């Protein structure tokens, strides 16, 4: 029995994190206005450069993050994938829904994006039917073959970094360049980064607190740790926290962002806070009742931050310019509360 492609993709959101902005999209080098003031944009990505001669008006997206980023720049995509893993009852997310309402393109209106199902991979047919003038796959695990195929439908921004590792900042910059909204994108990135950093500046319990982000598997005593380049670790770092030494010391190289860790060595995982993704309904007590997990200092001391709700998990695991402000409102207060309780 093998995991379905779909399940693998879902796992990749959980397990395969985003590398820091170190490869691919050097979006700063891109130009979005030519000498005469007409529109021209060049976006470099893993599979080459995509040149746009006109401002796109019908944007279709694949995977996570890309549609959110388009919306974050106040543009409504013509088409986007249904959010199945961690989605709400609309096959979307709360942050996408709110933004669509704000832009007057709620799901019950005619201007709402067309959605297509990516359960069986890239949905070429339905995307072609939309006749888009730009396809965005900046954050994706798109293969070169898939890229070539999409490029026949419309100019396509390929992945900025391999296998779902493009950072939200790079994706935002690339989408900004492609849509002629570079300045807005830069302002937004600055604002989000500032809002995240403010959490640590305003809360002494957060600033300098050490953390480990990982998953504790109750079904099989498995521990997985997200390394420094992972989206989740980057999220906590952006709040002003510090990745625990044990994780830094065991990072084999900069390209690895995920590490399995034997539960027998749980006591070595020293940090103030431990973030874990968990199946719905899981509580901190469930982890404390596991004799091996109870050896993790943060678990024993109650310094555990859980996302036991896939929707919440998605907001930081597929972090983007639209989901991060939502996470600031819906997730960060919990993080602050737990940090104050253990470091107060």
């Amino acid at each position, binding site marked *: 029995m093998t995991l379905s492609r779909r*399940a693998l993709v879902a796992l990749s959101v959980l397990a395969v994190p985003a590398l820091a902005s170190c490869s691919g999209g050097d979006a700063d080098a891109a130009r979005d206005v030519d000498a005469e003031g007409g529109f021209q944009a060049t976006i470099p990505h893993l599979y080459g450069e995509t040149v746009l001669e006109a401002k796109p008006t019908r944007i279709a997206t694949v995977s996570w993050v890309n549609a959110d980023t388009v919306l974050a720049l106040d543009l409504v995509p013509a088409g986007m994938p249904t959010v199945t893993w961690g989605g709400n009852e609309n096959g979307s997310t709360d942050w996408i829904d709110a933004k669509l309402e704000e832009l007057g393109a709620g799901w019950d209106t005619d201007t709402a994006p067309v959605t297509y199902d990516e359960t069986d991979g890239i949905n070429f047919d339905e995307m072609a039917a939309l006749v888009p003038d730009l396809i965005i796959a900046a954050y994706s695990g798109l293969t070169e073959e898939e890229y070539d195929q999409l490029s026949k439908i419309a100019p396509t921004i390929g992945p900025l970094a391999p296998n779902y590792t493009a950072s939200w900042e790079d994706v935002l910059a690339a989408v900004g360049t492609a849509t002629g909204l570079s300045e807005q994108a830069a302002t937004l990135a600055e604002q989000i980064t500032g809002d995240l950093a403010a959490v640590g500046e305003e809360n002494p319990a957060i600033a300098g607190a050490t953390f480990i982000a990982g998953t504790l598997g109750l079904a099989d005593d498995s521990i997985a740790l997200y390394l420094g380049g992972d989206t989740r670790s980057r999220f906590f770092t952006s709040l002003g926290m510090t990745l625990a030494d044990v994780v830094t010391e065991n990072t084999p190289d900069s390209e690895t962002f995920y590490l399995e860790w*034997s539960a027998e060595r749980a006591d070595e995982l020293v940090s103030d806070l431990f973030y874990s993704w968990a199946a719905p309904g899981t509580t901190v007590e469930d982890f404390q009742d596991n*004799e091996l997990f109870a050896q993790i200092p943060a678990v024993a001391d109650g310094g555990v931050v859980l996302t036991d709700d896939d929707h919440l998990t998605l907001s930081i695991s597929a972090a983007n310019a639209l989901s991060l402000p939502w996470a600031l409102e819906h997730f960060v207060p919990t993080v602050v509360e737990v940090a104050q309780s253990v470091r107060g």
Partner: protein
Amino acid sequence: MRRSTPLVLTGALLVLGLTCLLSLMVGARTVSPSTVVEALRAYDDSLTDHVVVHSRLLRTLAGIAVGGALAVAGAAMQGMTRNPLADPGILGINAGATTAVVLGVYLADASRVVELMGLALLGAALGTVAVYAVASLGREGATPVKLALTGAALTAGLGSVVNALVMIDDSSLDRLRFWQVGTLGARSLADISGVAALMAVGAVVILLTTGVLNALALGDDAAVGLGVKVGRARALLGTAVILLCGAAVALAGPIGFLGLVVPHAARLLLGGDYRRIVPLCLLGGPVLLLLADTAGRVIAPPAEVQVGVMTALVGVPVFIVLIRSRRQVGL
């Protein structure tokens, strides 16, 4: 060359004892032998070393139960079906058990081992009955080849059901993942003892009917000639196999190759008599499973490799050797 059975069984018992010791001593964490002894004599749950030894003890007990069950079940199935490649994984039993468990997790949020065990047994039984019923269609009845083919078809079909459920219900992905590769971790003493009681019933039934198994291995006509009521014998042995496999799946998830490799190894050592093979499987199954599990704990630090992966790593080369020396593997 046939070796003395008591000698081989005594040797196997000794090896099993050493393997258990190894399983308690060796792991990702270094615990000194004196600390291991101390943890067993005066357990103190405030000491991490003691907690780790306790978890190894539970893993070892689970390994003994699951290893013995799968190896004995494999031997019985090979004899019953006269199929040298028979294995709980081949005749649809593990697939039935796994599918039932996954359905239970999906539909009813089942999570306690008792619930999972009930589901696994039900699924194992349904899978076996389905394979047998379909293979029995046609004039020549349930031949070994038809049984194996039907089992393979059912396994493939149920595998897609499981994958479909994983797709529909992403939120239980973490729990369902457990049912795709076997592991011995995270089981409580209560879980293990409940499952082991059930396995003991199955193992005793098979140990008491090894003579019948010998007759069945000669073919149905010969068995009838020897006075065996073939239908009734198959039903009894089949029930025992279902008990063993269902219980093993409920405790550790699907673990492959053990039921295939251990009986063949026993056959190489002691010849084709099931009165010798089955007891040796009861000891040899745990040895192989515990060695695989212990190796999995230290082979890729700081991670651990799941025992289901390790048995495949150990099992596949042994299996290839067995196929290549086919002359010795005749039933």
